[in-house]
């Protein structure tokens, strides 16, 4: 088996969870990875400061799309404060594969979009879980 394109990565890429749109929604954000043209948006429903539901939408490489799908399962139920505290390493650890520097932005695009929607911060996620 390929060390990057593992079964579960390809499974999430081909059958992404929580993909589509939510109408109506409370929060939304959209961004892209200029390097390879990955494109991702998110719609969020928020209840009592928690993410009640979400949908990602867009297109991109297997890593960016699988990352969004895998992250979506963790993000539903989190408080907005918890989402804003998530680091880049949280996302990389969650993916469970070795990410080369050239693919890092692919892996982090979904977290970037989530942070944009919840905090308005449009910067790339940084930092380790201990920051």
């Amino acid at each position, binding site marked *: 088996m390929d060390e990057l*394109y593992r079964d579960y990565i*390809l499974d999430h890429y081909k059958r992404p969870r929580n993909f589509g749109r939510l109408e109506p929604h409370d929060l939304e954000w959209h961004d892209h990875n200029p390097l*390879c*043209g*990955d*494109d991702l948006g998110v719609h969020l429903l928020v209840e009592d400061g928690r993410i009640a539901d979400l949908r990602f939408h867009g297109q*991109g*490489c*297997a890593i960016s799309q699988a990352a969004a799908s895998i992250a979506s399962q963790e993000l539903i139920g989190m408080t907005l404060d918890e989402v804003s505290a998530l680091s880049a390493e949280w996302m990389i650890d969650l993916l469970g594969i070795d990410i080369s520097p050239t693919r890092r932005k*692919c892996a982090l695009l979904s977290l970037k979009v989530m942070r944009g929607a919840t905090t308005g911060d449009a910067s790339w996620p940084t930092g380790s879980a201990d920051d």
Partner: protein
Amino acid sequence: MGPLTTQRMAAVRADFPLLAREQNGRRLVYLDSAATSQKPQSVIDAISDYYRHSNANIHRGVYSLAREATDLYENARARVAAFCGWDAATTIFTRNATEAINLVAYAWGRHNLAAGDEVLISHMEHHSNIVPWQLLCQERGARLRYLSVSSEGTLSLDELAAVLAEGRVKLVAIAHVSNVLGTINPVAEIVARARGAGAVTLVDGSQAVPQLDVDVAGIGADFYAWTGHKALGPTGIGVLHARRELLESMPPFLGGGDMISAVDFDSSTWNELPWKFEAGTSAIAEGVGLGAAVDYLSALGMENVRRHERTLTAYALERLVEIPGLRLFGPRDADARGGVVSFALAGVHPHDIAELCDREAVCIRAGHHCAQPLMRRMGVPATARASFHVYNTREDVDRLIEALATTRAVFEL
């Protein structure tokens, strides 16, 4: 010179030391020459020899060494100019094609474009032939217009004629060869029509000079820009061939040393052409290296280079359609295109294709290729792209086909 024989082609490969490299135990297959070409030993030696034996600043020193450096640089310019059928005095060395185009946008565009004027480019331009015109048009209140690209990846001369007939186009700037589609545009015809409508013309020859027998005088463009590093030369050196009367009427682009005749407290007078447009110490070793690159290409014969690229492109087009789910972009006729093939594979993003090809030691490009407007026109976020030069072989194409089959297997297609 006759066609390149198999033996000669094997010798050509051996001229490029990097191609001896292995990756994961396999011979490296380099299919990204449209991004930058590999360099023959003669170019590497020319740069190395220059620094080891001849380095001095040019155009100043009276000592022999400085004269030698100046001669090497200016002789390189003369050969580079002749290689493209142009005159040395109106062949300006820049950092790259992007700087050459910016030179025109700043030194010609700012002084000749007014509100309501139009700059006409096409949807298949590289960002380097889009963004300088966007900046210029924003500054001057001019309008940037685009010629559309057909589903076959070609431009329409009828559409060109219709836009020119409206009478507002002051500049037409078009790629000679598309870096994504491979399309060879009919630039001589485009230039003739633009001139007939009173417009100045710029041709971006970055993808053409490396692989076609380019005759700038025959094309007739007012400005012809290209870059050295795609034509077997070093990075950091580009070329602008331009019509003398335009260069004489233009103010300098950058101010500094070497480009002046005399400097007074409040004003200066300009050096003669081409040095008026070469401020500061030039990329001397790079100019010398580019001279060696055009010598190498001339010795091969550009008709042979073109024949080799055409044959390889035709073979790649033929083999690529064997891959299920593969979509090709650009003209299907190898006579109508240069040595670049863009494609998409159903179910696999180009970035993943390039990553999996790399595992097989095959270097291809994935992304928007600095042509985002074209990607939008084609309705894809990105493509994968294989491009060829003299050192590539049919076996390289076979290795790409193998790697694409592996890619489909990994993605369980």
